[in-house]
């Protein structure tokens, strides 16, 4: 089966080169530099473990949590919240599309409706919450107008709440698409068989649909978890630059040219994220499912 004169490895070379030059090599450098020394203006390629020691400075203290652990806990909190919310919404929306919308063209139309915002600017979608949630925003105008509260609610914007809201707003799409894709592949006969055997609607969903969507759920979860773990843009903009996250720590250290520290933090973040992904992939074999 020869589609071109070119040998396959040559066809894939430009693609592979991009990843070698802009992914593999940079990551190796991050690993190496995390063990380097540095002064204020230059990097010194001499081995030291000090960067890692500094990251965990004070973590042996059992009385109070150190800064690094606090930051990870805060990031993990966002991770779990956003994962749970996007999973529930993503599953419900995908379920509605896959099993309750009858015509294929209507299904496609509604599916596209859900995915269009994904191709627009994330920052714009974040700041579009400002006129709604701000001190003089629509929500506060409504609440004070109705007499529910006397003074405007302050925690709506630039807070944990607005960060989670923005994450859900931006990334539920990553749950909907793979879960919908899995649901479309379920043989309708299986669902009929379940009903014929006397299962209630809820039993069918829980015992037939959910297990068969495992792949979609896992892929969606991987996307959401890795995005939230490394985020600094959403937490920065929606947290009013006041909330800490692991990604933000790395970004700040980089901007102060503290590369070895930033690299050490990046290695730890990467290890943490990869462990989470590994745990999730124990559930499915990704490549076979494409």
């Amino acid at each position, binding site marked *: 089966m020869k589609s071109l004169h070119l040998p396959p490895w040559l066809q894939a070379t430009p693609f592979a080169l991009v990843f070698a030059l802009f992914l593999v090599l940079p990551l190796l450098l991050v690993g190496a530099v995390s063990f380097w020394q540095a002064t204020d203006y230059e990097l010194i390629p001499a081995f030291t473990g000090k960067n890692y020691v500094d990251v965990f400075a004070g973590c042996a203290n059992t009385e109070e949590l150190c800064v690094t652990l606090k930051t990870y806990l805060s990031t993990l909190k966002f991770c779990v919240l956003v994962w749970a919310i996007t999973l529930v919404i993503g599953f419900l929306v995908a379920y509605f599309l896959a099993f309750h919308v009858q015509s294929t063209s209507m299904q496609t139309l509604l599916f596209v409706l859900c995915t269009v915002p994904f191709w627009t600017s994330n920052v714009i979608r974040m700041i579009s919450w400002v006129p709604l949630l701000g001190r003089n925003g629509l929500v506060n105008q409504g609440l004070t107008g109705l007499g529910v509260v006397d003074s405007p609610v302050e925690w709506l914007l630039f807070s944990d709440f607005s960060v989670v809201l923005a994450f859900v707003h931006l990334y539920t799409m990553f749950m909907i698409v793979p879960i919908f894709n899995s649901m479309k592949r379920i043989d309708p006969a299986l669902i009929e068989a379940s009903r014929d055997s006397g299962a209630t609607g809820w039993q069918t969903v829980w015992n037939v649909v959910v297990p068969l969507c495992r792949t979609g759920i896992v892929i969606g979860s991987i996307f959401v978890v890795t995005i939230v773990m490394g985020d600094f*843009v959403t937490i920065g903009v929606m947290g009013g630059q006041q909330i800490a996250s692991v990604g933000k720590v790395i970004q700040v250290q980089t901007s102060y040219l503290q590369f070895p520290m930033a690299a050490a933090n990046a290695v730890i973040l990467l290890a943490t994220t990869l462990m989470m992904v590994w745990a999730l992939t124990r559930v499915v074999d990704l490549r076979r499912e494409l």
Partner: protein
Amino acid sequence: MSAPRRTPAFYGLAAVFALFVLFLYGPMVVIFVLSLQGPEGGLTFPMRGFSFHWFGKLWEGMGVVDIAAAFRRSVALGAVVMVLTVLLSLGAGLAFRRRLKGAGALFYTAVASLIMPSIVVSLGIGLQFRLVDTGLQALLTQWGLDGLLEGYGTAMGLYTSALGAHLTWTLPFGLLIMLAVFNRFSPAYEEAARDLGATPWQGFRHVVLPLVAPSLVGVGMFGFTLSWDEIARTSQAIGDVNTLPLELQGLTSTVTTPAIYALGTVTTLVSFVVMGATWALVTWLGRRR
């Protein structure tokens, strides 16, 4: 499927879906409306008249930021990323159909790139180019090329580090789409072409390419729109000039006029134009077949 059509579950789920769509589009619509504020208007309702005042302000530039230049840079970079994403993904997609050594490793590298925290990739590329700078400057000093040394800024830039950073984000999507397309692609078409005496190139040009063309348009759209909005991977891997989304991110904390909504409206319109063009092109290709 013969599911009972209008059960209580249907209405419940339909309500959830409707609320979700409102949640997706509501805030966007609000800023489109607010970008048309009159000159006296502020960041929130009420509207004080309707005007294109803030679009004019936007074009004049916001403070020290030259929006028009950033806009042009982002369009140009997006176009380059789009073309490269289509070409490289197609090449890799074709290669994956045949016996390719290291196919598994390449596939997992691409997937890893997709789920790698962007800040880590960005930091790595930034470091890499800084080290290249240091190395080049040392070489220039050693060779006594002081004239060149003075003129040398950095190797980091729009079409070096930023382009590479964007490709690590767009190519995995391109590959996944191509793999999905070729998984469902029957080799019988090419075999028929070959049996009729077509050369491999003719078989590709006249049989495979027309069949995958709509998907390639889709890959191109992913390439452009993902590049157009990219922030995280570019943030540490760009030199002296910024792309539009990076400028925009900076402006969120400094600009307090509806001009920022006008900017939002303009960037969203560009995204919509690209999606519309994609849809039109795919439809046209489908009709021609």
